[in-house]
């Protein structure tokens, strides 16, 4: 999962999966026979992120509802497609980046939601008919504050694309979604006029700074580590990953600009034919409740989708929240990318190689 700011599978989540594989046949039988099972399966990306989700969301959820949450690692669209094709759906709730969730929605992979489960007026991005946006995350410019003082680094995308005023080696994500938007914003296109993307223009803008692009980090971890080792000067990465460099075990602290960011949605769905559908729906409704959202984002440092939760965050956590009402920030369009991803990304991959 290149496109996400979370860590990859941990030993703990592997063990969770392995133990689940052993009990799976038994579990599936019971869940098929009784509608009111007391478990639900959730996919997660592992690591410290998953530990935080368990502590702030899943354990309290189990305490309140009596429903036990089984965590399985690595959401992966290919695996979901395989489960649906073979009619052997093992997962209930899946956590996916927006583009994937939208793509699956178009294919009819998800169960319909009941809008009355949610407090719609509280949600910055309301749920669609089958996809819940649970949190948002921000991509922007990061740098080493020891090397670049105030005003010596690009703070917005126009400056990031200005290699005369801010010479230096750059790293961008090797993904069309985000990089092409950044290029157009950097070239002066207003955020409200970005979609549908002017792909040709975006490539032309990228071509201007190509000699300064030193790396296309294959993993999110690398988008930070290359910065920390001085391999690149300015890196497009995620705010929560930069925040993590300031915490224990994060390595050398880096800095992040909140002046202009791209906002991504992080989404949750229930797979069609999920064995514990009703419990899955309960988990989705619980996930976007203001106090749950506040607990979660205080720990993981992403952006809550609940407006009330935003106000409940501590001063320290609020320092890392981009202003969603600032018109300079752009919310990545999941519908656009679910329609155009393959075509544009193929061209993008080829462009990178030439």
């Amino acid at each position, binding site marked *: 999962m290149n496109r996400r700011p979370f860590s990859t599978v941990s030993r703990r989540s592997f063990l969770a999966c392995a133990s689940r594989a052993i009990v799976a046949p038994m579990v599936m039988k019971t869940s098929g026979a009784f509608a009111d099972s007391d478990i639900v399966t959730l996919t997660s990306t592992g690591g410290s992120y998953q530990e935080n989700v368990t502590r702030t969301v899943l354990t309290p959820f189990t305490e309140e509802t009596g429903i036990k949450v089984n965590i399985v690692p690595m959401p*992966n*669209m*290919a695996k979901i*497609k395989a489960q649906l094709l073979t009619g052997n759906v093992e997962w209930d709730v899946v956590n996916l980046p927006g583009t994937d969730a939208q*793509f699956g929605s178009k294919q009819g992979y998800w169960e319909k939601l009941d809008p009355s489960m949610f407090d719609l007026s509280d949600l910055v991005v309301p749920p669609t008919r089958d996809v819940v946006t649970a949190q948002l995350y921000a991509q922007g410019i990061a740098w080493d504050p020891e090397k670049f003082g105030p005003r010596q680094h690009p703070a917005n995308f126009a400056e990031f694309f200005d290699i005369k005023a801010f010479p230096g*080696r750059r790293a961008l994500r*090797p993904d069309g979604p985000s990089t092409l938007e950044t290029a157009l914003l950097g070239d002066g296109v207003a955020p409200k006029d970005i979609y549908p993307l002017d792909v040709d223009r975006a490539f032309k803008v990228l071509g201007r700074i190509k000699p300064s692009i*030193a*790396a*296309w980090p*294959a*993993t999110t971890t*690398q988008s930070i*580590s*290359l910065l920390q*080792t*001085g*391999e690149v000067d300015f890196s497009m990465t995620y705010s929560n990953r930069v925040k993590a460099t300031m915490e224990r075990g994060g390595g050398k602290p880096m800095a992040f600009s909140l002046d202009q960011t791209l906002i991504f949605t992080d989404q949750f769905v229930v797979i069609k034919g999920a064995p514990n559908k009703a419990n899955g729906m309960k988990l989705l409704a619980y996930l976007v409740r203001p106090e749950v959202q506040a607990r979660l984002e205080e720990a993981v440092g992403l952006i809550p989708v609940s407006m009330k939760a935003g106000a409940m965050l501590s001063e320290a956590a609020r320092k890392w929240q981009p202003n969603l009402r600032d018109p300079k920030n752009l919310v990545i369009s999941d519908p656009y990318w679910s329609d155009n*991803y*393959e075509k544009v*990304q*193929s061209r993008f*991959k*080829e462009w*990178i*190689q*030439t």
Partner: protein
Amino acid sequence: MNRSSTIGAQAIFMSPAVLLAATIMLPPLFFILYTSVHGTSLSLHEYREIASSSLFRRTLGTTLVIAVASSVLSVFLAFIVAVHLARQTARRRTILLVLVLLPLWTSILVKCFAFTIILGRDGILNGILSWLFNTKIQLPLVLNRIGLFVGLTNSLVPIAVFPILASVLAIDDSVYRAASIMGAKPARILRTITIPLSLPGILAGLFTTFVYSLGAYIVPSLLGGPRDQMLSNLVDFYNRQVLDWPRAAAISVVLLAMISVFGTPLAFWRQRKGIGGARV
């Protein structure tokens, strides 16, 4: 014991393993082939598509160039290591062989991140050079083809050392003695004895490392530059990111076909070597 009975005996002992491997390996492989031709419609659409895709052709070219270069480089380095190992006493050789194997015991991901620290612009190597020459040196050693070759040879050299070492060790000492009695200098001995007689091992090493590097995936993504992406990266793109399984399957079949083309001579060749060895 004649040769056919040996093979018959081998077959009896090997067949459970072969059967098990075949039941596990063949159905998924067949399914990949089946997916690549759109099931029963037996359409060659995907193959035509990739043949006309410049992204595929470019990546195929890169893959072949990288695989050839890295296998030649690895065998060259492995040959030096093997010749040195062959000269040691058996006990010393065992200890040194463990050192040769060491890179294979470390996670390739960890190694890639470690190489970034060693080879980076502000990395350990450039740091030492800068200190030695008392000037800022920032050689580009990573996120390009150099970094890729360093990463690939690091994991390929141990694989190549073993067949070459076996060949070098099989050379009869008296041949060396005869050569030096007749006045051959070390360079001459290397050229006319060591290299020709260890050719079986060298070729085996060459094929094995070539086949390994054709399927490289992690090293090109982490240590290579944007122009060093290989076919496996493309398979991942179609399989996991755009869910175009027929396309991913077609590319996998092409990759598998290439590996078979280069792997088959290796298998036959090992057999012949076995016969030759028996005769000596």
